[in-house]
């Protein structure tokens, strides 16, 4: 028996399963998990997936992971290095199929806040977040996969204090009504569950991970979940998925640290 997957390994594998062959995927800050997921998907079922790092590096193949998605060591052995103008046009033209976002807050409609909390109490925030470099990608990318290493009522909130990246806004047709033609968030992976969205664009539990109780999910989610437990169980990582991840993608065990 090998070691059980860590939370990061599990999330990596679950995100990898959602990526399709031929897609163009871009990652942002603090993105070890989605970067690893793209590299894993390339090994498993999506060899034609293109990964662009937030630094503009295309299809890196370093033989290991680096924790900063902007690390210069992703460059040697990559296929191309994009320019600042490439970056601008990608922020506008909708060429991207998949974008990944984490958040200080993620709300029940998949909106993301990385800017500030507590702005309702005055001009100064209670908490100042780092901000989001690529807000626009949430509007123009084909679809969004959300992820969060934390799953608490403070992270998963009813409504974000500041709407940094557009999810489904107020739910229903409000995203389309705002003139946004892309799909928006389709999935959110946490250490506890995989969320997806119902037809009213409300975040709902798609499956609960091994070792997590339905009650724990309810207790640690800060908004009302639209469906009732019991929820399906997440199909666990296969030995093949885990072996590929550990041997080919993450030889130095960054996802196990």
């Amino acid at each position, binding site marked *: *028996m*090998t*070691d059980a997957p860590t939370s990061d390994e599990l999330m990596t594998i679950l995100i990898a399963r959602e990526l399709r*062959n*031929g897609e*163009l995927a871009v990652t942002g800050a603090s993105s070890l998990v989605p970067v690893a997921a793209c590299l894993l998907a*390339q*090994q*498993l*079922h*999506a*060899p*034609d997936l*293109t990964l662009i790092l937030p630094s503009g*590096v*295309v*299809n890196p*193949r370093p033989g290991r992971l680096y924790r900063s998605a902007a690390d210069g060591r992703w*460059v*040697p*052995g*990559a*296929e*191309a*290095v*994009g320019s600042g103008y490439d970056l*601008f*046009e990608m922020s*506008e*033209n*909708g060429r991207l199929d998949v974008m990944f976002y984490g958040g200080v807050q993620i709300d029940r409609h998949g909106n993301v806040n990385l800017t500030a909390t507590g702005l309702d109490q005055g001009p100064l925030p209670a908490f100042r977040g780092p901000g989001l470099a690529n807000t626009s990608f949430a509007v*123009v990318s084909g679809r969004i996969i959300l992820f969060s290493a934390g799953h608490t009522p403070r992270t998963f909130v009813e409504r974000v204090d500041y709407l940094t990246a557009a999810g489904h806004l107020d739910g229903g047709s409000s995203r389309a009504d705002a003139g946004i033609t892309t799909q928006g968030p389709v999935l959110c992976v946490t250490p506890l569950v995989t969320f997806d969205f119902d037809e009213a664009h409300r975040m709902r539990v798609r499956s609960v991970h091994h070792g997590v109780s339905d009650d724990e999910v309810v207790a640690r989610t800060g908004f009302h979940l639209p469906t009732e437990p019991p929820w399906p169980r997440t199909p666990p990582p296969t*030995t*093949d998925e*885990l*072996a*590929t991840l*550990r*041997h*080919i993608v993450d030889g130095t065990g960054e996802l196990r640290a």
Partner: protein
Amino acid sequence: MDASSPPPAARTVRTSKATALSEAVALVPSGSFVALGGLWFHNNPSAAVHELIRQGVEGLTIVAAPPSSYAVDLLIGAGAVRTAYLAHVSFDHLGMAPNFRRAGESGEVEIIDGDEALLLGGLMATLEALPKHPVHSLKGTDLLRRSPLAGSSDAFGGADVAAPAAMAPDVCLLHAQEADIYGNVRYEGTPFCDPLLAKASHKVIVCVDRLVDNDEIRREPHLTVIPGYLVDAVVETPYGAHPCASQGHYAHDEERLTAYMAAGRTAAGWRSDYLEPYVLRPRTPQEYLAAVGGAERIERLASVVS
């Protein structure tokens, strides 16, 4: 599972974009809007244009890099072009482009004069998903007054600011020196506007003198000018730019280009002395190569052409 078991191999094979010339060119039906790369007689997608003409494609709308040459003049001469968005068409120091000039004087082709800023502005509008892109730099010129490309101009800073509408060609035809089978493209000379043309187009066909291994591309990632995700088909066409130049591989063929222009003094002469023997009669790039004197002669060009 056993963590010490051998690593599994990749499940699926990455898709090659290497394509035969005739198949690639089938992506360009009659009536398409085609972008042509290169500049003057450097990096012209000559082999692809020869094949297009052989396949009888017609009714094209074209746009080319701001200074264009052989590929544009050839398509116009062959009667394949209905509308052309162009800034400059010439054979540079060798002189005028004969078919372009004739078509402009006869009105057979609708020539829409732009300039660098208007053409690139229209392409950039597409890249930036804007209906049009502001361009302030044509004040006082007849282009601003007369070119349909200048567009409605009040939108962004006053009546003397042009706003070319977004231009999105159906297919882009490029010639470069090297690519891998996944469409990662390198240039030894200047890429010029080829990346812009590629990004603005729905499909991209790149002809290269030489396919190289993906590992070779990965040894110098900074040299990749067009990344593979932009490319739909890669065609290995040795000497595919001839009679134009492909830097590092062969110079332009001054003798053949001069003969082209001489033949072009009349439309009939150009058809009988150039189009027939060098474009229509050879059925493949190999036969074209033989008709112009063979690879050995072309290889010598870099040293003998001034």
